[in-house]
């Protein structure tokens, strides 16, 4: 019976529509105070359009194209400020509060002097169907929301490509 209930719960998670996984990344007034801003909003249609412009002959571009083709959206907001204290340090909590029970903390890094990073994965069984990264530094605040099935192995396989730095967990270059 217990096994049956767990199965139902997983099924319900799978049935959650893609739009429900999109996080509100609207931070009024933050861009005006920032010195540098990255603001990327790519919905499914834009991602499919972008995928056409990745070369099918280049292995690296093909890998990235395959990765983004199944996604429903990629959203990035990154703000860099001239001085510390220019943004509300409670902003990461406002983002976290939007994450429902299917979101699992993946990695949490806390540092007083460097960067706090929280990575959350939206799980459907063993599949990752969404990713939220919240990075807060004294002078920079970044949120990334990727909506859709993510192959973490493929993400790791983008090492050293397109300016993407090495990621492999197997390597120990320390």
């Amino acid at each position: 019976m217990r096994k049956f209930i767990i199965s139902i719960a997983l099924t319900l998670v799978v049935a959650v529509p893609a739009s429900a996984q999109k996080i509100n990344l609207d931070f009024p007034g933050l861009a005006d105070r920032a010195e540098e801003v990255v603001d990327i909003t790519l919905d499914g249609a834009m991602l499919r359009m972008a995928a056409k412009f990745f070369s099918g002959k280049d292995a690296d571009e093909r890998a990235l194209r395959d990765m983004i083709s199944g996604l429903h959206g990629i959203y990035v907001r990154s703000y860099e400020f001239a001085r510390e204290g220019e943004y509300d340090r409670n902003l990461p909590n406002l983002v976290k509060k939007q994450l429902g029970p299917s979101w699992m903390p993946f990695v949490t890094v806390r540092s007083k002097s460097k960067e706090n990073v929280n990575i959350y994965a939206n799980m459907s069984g063993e599949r990752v169907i969404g990713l939220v990264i919240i990075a807060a530094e004294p002078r920079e605040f970044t949120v990334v929301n990727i909506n859709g099935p993510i192959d973490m192995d493929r993400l790791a396989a983008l090492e050293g490509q397109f300016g993407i730095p090495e990621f492999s967990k197997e390597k120990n270059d320390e």
Partner: protein
Amino acid sequence: MNEHDLKRALRAEAPPAGFAGRVMQRIEAGETQPRPSRNAPQWWRAAAASVTLAMVLGGYATHKAVEYRRGIEAKEQVLEAMRITSEKVRYAQQEVRAIGTHD
């Protein structure tokens, strides 16, 4: 490298002498259309010579040019998004690894 270096490196310089004269020669010769791009495929060169065909295709060409530009911009944004994502994930991974080696 600082802003001063960039401004100095990118300071405007005059084109080769006689530039204005060469432009005026083309205008006075009735050549007011720009040369077709050296990168244009052969069939476009023929189309460019025909005003009627150019007018008919003008709207379609504009639409395709806009679509092309949007697609390229979207690709650049994907690359930037993935760069930022990987940067943050890598940082987190390094910190986790560092903690592990201090245990």
